């Protein structure tokens, strides 16, 4: 090159300026991390401080006592939440993965575009609207609030979250991997399940966790579908069923077709009652809800780490 291009610029000055700007931006990013972290840490600490006192074994295994009386637990809500989230997961996860694979393979077809658009819309629908929809569809025809109806609306809440996150994760899998499997003569379904899904597993599971966390925290749709039930007790139903010689179907029916309680429902109900014991218990419920989501996440991460050790030696 003709001459030194840096003859006309003051390089040390450029460097000094760069360092200044760098430090300022670094400081700002650090500040925003702290600002973003404060609400989270605050909520967690506040809920723990308010909730830990009512948490004991009874809280987990006993049904609520009469209003105004002390003691008792929220096992109805814990069991109900778990049952409904399991129902939601069983319905939503396979469906969401199938949809995600469809979107992966047929992204630009008319149906693909329509599905992507409607999942986006579904994720934007207020959950209370999904609740009233569930009421019309799953409650009115049977004249009965039920865990099944609750699980179904939770599945509808979960579905778009899992579809869109799984689709993004599946898209990241290099197409050479798919071609490598197809080139061995493997059918498309086998390739999808054994190669692509496994390669994207980590992100897919993270998306499922997000969906589950979203579902387990929903209140509004359950008001219309699960309603609440201070006597809901899966173990009680099973015990009673065995004692009175009921068939498996009858026990299942009891578990899934009864009005059901859930942690967020209980939280909402207890928090507005005039009895201080119940208000205090509602903080305990909040804490259990948080712990449950945390546990779910830790469980999934541990499973993923174990899985990764298996596949990567």
């Amino acid at each position, binding site marked *: *090159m*003709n001459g030194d*291009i*840096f003859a*006309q610029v003051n*390089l040390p000055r*450029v460097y000094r300026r760069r360092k200044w700007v760098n430090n300022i931006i670094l400081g700002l990013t650090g500040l925003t991390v702290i600002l973003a972290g404060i609400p989270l840490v605050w909520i967690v600490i506040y809920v723990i401080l308010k909730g830990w006192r009512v948490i004991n074994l009874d809280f987990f295994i006993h049904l609520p006592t009469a209003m105004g009386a002390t003691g008792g637990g929220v096992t109805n809500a814990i069991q109900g939440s778990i049952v409904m989230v399991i129902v939601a997961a069983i319905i939503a996860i396979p469906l969401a993965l199938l949809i995600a694979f469809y979107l992966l393979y047929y992204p630009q077809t008319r149906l693909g575009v329509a599905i992507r658009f409607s999942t986006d819309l579904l994720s934007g629908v207020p959950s209370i609207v999904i609740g009233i929809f569930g009421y019309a569809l799953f409650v009115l025809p049977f004249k009965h609030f039920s865990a099944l109806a609750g699980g179904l609306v939770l599945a509808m809440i979960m579905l778009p979250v899992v579809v869109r996150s799984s689709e993004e994760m599946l898209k990241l899998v290099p197409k050479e991997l798919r071609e490598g499997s197809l080139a061995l003569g493997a059918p498309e379904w086998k390739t999808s399940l054994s190669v692509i899904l496994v390669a994207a597993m980590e992100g897919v599971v993270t998306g499922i966790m997000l969906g589950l966390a979203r579902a387990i925290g929903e209140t509004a749709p359950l008001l219309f579908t699960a309603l609440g039930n201070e006597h809901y007790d899966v173990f009680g139903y099973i015990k009673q069923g065995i004692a009175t010689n009921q068939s498996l179907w009858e026990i299942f029916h009891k578990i899934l077709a009864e009005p059901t309680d859930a942690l967020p429902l209980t939280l909402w109900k207890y928090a507005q009652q005039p009895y201080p014991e119940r208000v205090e218990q509602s903080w305990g419920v909040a804490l259990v809800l948080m712990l449950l989501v945390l546990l779910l996440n830790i469980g999934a991460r541990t499973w993923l780490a174990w899985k990764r050790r298996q596949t990567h030696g």
Partner: protein
Amino acid sequence: MLTQKIEIRNLSVFYKSFRAVNDVTMPVYENKVTAIIGPSGCGKSTLLRSLNRMNDLVPGSHSEGEIILDGENLLDAGVDVVDVRRRVGMVFQRPNPFPMSVYDNIAYGPRLYGVKKKAILDEIVEESLRGAALWDDVKDKLKQSGMALSGGQQQRLCIARAIAIQPEVLLMDEPASALDPIATLRIEELVAQLQERYTIVIVTHNMQEAARVSDYTAFMMMNEQRAGELVEFDETAAIFTTPQDKRTEDYITGRFG
């Protein structure tokens, strides 16, 4: 007259506890092309990336030893990494043009260092593109996206981008391995021209390429602990005709690797 541009002294590079490069000592001569060859995983890319501190980007990496560039140890704590990278440029295995026009790809570097005047930028862009033997191909499409060029053109664009900030040393990490034979040939010719202005260190898998383009060759291999070691360093002609080490001879005659 032969002067040492870079002097690598007892360099070891670690990724966490894994020793990727073990105790390498070798010179890099000014205005010469030095090739680093060796089997996969022998640490040649790691060694190359140490020379402009790109390994800093790998979490958990650290280095021991010294890399002396014009009397200054690049591994010293007080060294400005940005200044190191301005003086020691790099071209990567896969062409990586930025998602912007050909012109802006080249002007990106000079602008970083405070060059603002249009006339000077224009001159730098033209000179750099000429220097990378790309000017005739793209002089009428400077406003087009750099990503629209062919693979070989993209790689020459990346070379032009690297020399636009007038580095003293140019590192090339298998610059032709993703290209077809004709594009490869043009890159090799380019290396020979660039040598007049820059000190070049090139990593290559291809021994014929090393023999064609380089003045000096370093042959690296993994030891029993899988750490890369320098087996032999000499003039390229000597390495390929009268290697001193049995392992070098085995490698260049194709008996392994």
